[in-house]
């Protein structure tokens, strides 16, 4: 719809509007400030290679976080994603080492991820266990399974080079495949969430399940979709991880849970405050990526990075909680 924009008359509630404006864009401002600070502060930050590098570094995190966003939209939290990353990242190499063709191995890993999501949703939607608890337990079980199937060792040797290209190759020698996959996933997820009835219904279920039900929306199904997609995306991320590392690690994906949640929370402060959106999550992951990358270049220790990250999460969630009713359970 193209129409000439008319300037809305001044409203009495103008100060509040400025408040929401600040809230909406403060995260973006932090992102830009960080970016500029690193660009000015170190000469190795603002270079083509490093920027591509950042995209590459955040690709797996972003995919996990976008998966979490589907769950969040339906008000379900998935704490098992980190271990699903690990599971898929082990299964694909294991299958290939056992002689299964590459495409089938990838499908196998994805199916396993999806399976975890379905088991989670059977517990949450079928039995009525809160998702926070069901997925926490699932994570613990998966952690054990990951060590069991790998014997506690990394899986390497005998992984086909074509598979490794998924994680290490570049399109036209510039854009790494993981970054490309991430951009495609972010783009298509954005479209599904913002431009299809599927996304609308998912948000409706998270926004007010009773109203959604009385509007004829299949509430239970959408809760299942949210949790299933969250696991599926974690599995995609796990496959990229193992291809990039050239091995399957039994504890490979553990950091993605916390960083993924952080990306979602940071994203919830912008665009539609209080709501998890795909673009918000992407910016959240970008913020974390830029911060990690920049702090690395400045030479800051990883444990300090962890502290800084924690502080940023607290600030982000505080901003959201003050103005909206952030309910996660």
């Amino acid at each position, binding site marked *: 719809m193209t129409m000439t924009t008319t300037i*809305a008359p001044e409203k009495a509630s103008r100060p509040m509007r400025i408040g929401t404006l600040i809230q909406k864009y403060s995260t973006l401002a932090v992102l830009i400030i960080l970016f500029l600070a690193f660009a000015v502060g170190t000469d190795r930050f603002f270079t083509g290679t490093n920027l591509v590098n950042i995209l590459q570094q955040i690709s797996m995190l972003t995919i996990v976080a976008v998966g979490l966003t589907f769950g969040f939209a339906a008000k379900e939290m998935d704490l098992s994603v980190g271990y699903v990353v690990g599971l898929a990242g082990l299964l694909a190499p294991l299958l290939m080492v056992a002689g299964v063709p590459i495409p089938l191995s990838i499908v196998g890993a994805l199916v396993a991820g999806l399976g975890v999501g379905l088991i989670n949703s059977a517990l949450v939607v079928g039995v009525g266990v809160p998702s926070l608890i069901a997925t926490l337990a699932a994570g613990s079980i998966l952690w054990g399974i990951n060590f069991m199937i790998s014997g506690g060792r990394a899986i390497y040797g005998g992984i086909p080079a074509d598979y490794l290209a998924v994680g290490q190759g570049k399109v036209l020698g510039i854009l790494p495949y993981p970054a490309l996959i991430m951009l495609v996933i972010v783009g298509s997820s954005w479209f599904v969430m913002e431009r*299809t*009835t*599927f996304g*609308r219904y998912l948000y409706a279920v998270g*926004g007010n399940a*009773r109203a959604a039900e009385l509007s*004829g929306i*299949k509430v239970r199904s959408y809760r299942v979709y949210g949790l299933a997609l969250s696991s599926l995306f974690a599995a995609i991320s796990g496959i990229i991880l193992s291809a990039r590392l050239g091995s399957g690690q039994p504890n490979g994906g553990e950091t993605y849970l916390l960083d993924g949640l952080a990306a979602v929370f940071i994203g919830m402060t912008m665009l539609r405050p209080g*709501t998890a959106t795909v673009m918000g999550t992407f910016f959240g992951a970008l913020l974390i990526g830029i911060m990690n990358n920049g702090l690395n270049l400045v030479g800051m220790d990883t444990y300090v990075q962890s502290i800084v990250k924690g502080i940023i999460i607290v600030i982000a969630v505080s901003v959201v909680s003050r103005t909206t009713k952030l309910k996660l359970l």
Partner: protein
Amino acid sequence: MSIVLENITKQWPGTLALDGVSIEIVEGRVHGIVGENGAGKTTLVSILSGAVQPTAGTLSMAGQPVAFENPAAAVANGVSLVSQEGSLVPHLTGAENICLGFEPVKSRFFINRREVQRQAEELAKQWFPDTAIALNRKVDELPYADQKVIEILRALHSRPKVLILDEPTATLPAKEKQSLWTLIRQLSDAGMAVVLISHFLQEVIDLCDEITVLQDGRKVSHLSNAGHEVTERQLIDLMLNRGQAGNQHRLPDGALTERTLAADAEIVVDIEGWQGERFHMDGLKVRSGEIVGLIGLTGSGHFEFAQSLFEPRLATAGRYRFKSKDVGRASVRDMKRCGAALIPDHRMINAMIGDWTVRENMSMAGIQETSLKPFGIVQTGRERAETQRLIKRLNIKTSSAETKIVELSGGNKQKVSVAKWQFASEGRYKLFVFLEPTEGVDVGAKREIHELIVSLAERGAAVIVASSDLLEIAHVADRVVAFRNGRDADQIARRDFSEAVFINAIAGVTQ
């Protein structure tokens, strides 16, 4: 000691909840407060217990003016509330609940369990010497009536002068009510000033020494009931009869114009022996183009019945045919697909998503109609255009379609709730069920919503309206079914409509 409320007024944004209400609560007496939903009982209780501050008016105790800034201040001044919703910690014992927050300690840190038990027993013995309550058992193992007694004892722990009981028997099974009534009498006999809020009118008549009747935020009557001479009929009359309250929107008695229905109008709803946990409907047929009003006192089952027409799973037995097809225990989704729509009460809880815009709320039930199949790609342009059309058609006052729904007034929110079922689906729905269609809606929008209801019927839908506003029912309905004690009790044709007839039907007085 008595507490006197003088000219208490409470203005909420958009509604006047209490309008110059004066009440005197005296020690040693049980003061009943009755009124229909929205009469102001809850606001009154909140003001008495310090949860809400009045906009105007004064409270005084023993001749001294008092102000309760918060519930703690009310308790400190000797006013305790036993709220309707259970406030007990289920896994603690009765005694522990009674002393919760005031536990006697030993060695400064440890709860003195023996002393807790002793204090609780002493309190129980002081007030209810003839009643044995297991104070040493976890409260969730006790019968509901005992739980209520423990809640009362907990309120008595702060040694109040005034005790407010908000719907104390609402959650009790019939058998357990009797014992609680005895205890309430014992309290007032011992000198306590008791305020009793209840919608069980016979209970109020049996227990109370005086009764205040509220209607639309005003005190319409104060009755002395020392000899229990007040009748249920008298109370219902006062609660419902807006004519007597000087309301200019009086229902014209008799001789109402009847809308003519086509003789061959399709039967949309056909019910036989339809019953659920709290309603029973022997039989009802609603034709296309007809508006049936459902009336009854709070809790008499008419709302539950109306809801079950859209959510058949709420029923446990009986037969329901929708457009000649047996629906069995169909889901909401199936009912929607067959052509049934519900405009629920408590719209922000049941119909709206507060974070969403007018457009998003309006398209919630019909967005698939304006989307590209098979993937359901939302066609933003069509969605906006359809929203604009409905905003204009239903005269919804909003600065734009992108305004958040919470910024709209009650009446405009309600219009959005109706528009939801017309979004790209005009004429598709053959049954509209309205629950309290003008709850929290101002007078002007009220009339528009009534016109909307009538226009739905005129365009061929069957309409069912359950409302506690009798004037509203009289304006829109072609005929009325009155519910009593969970059952359909009377049918009234439009030509017989009058306030007296409605109230007789609700109260169960045959003419």
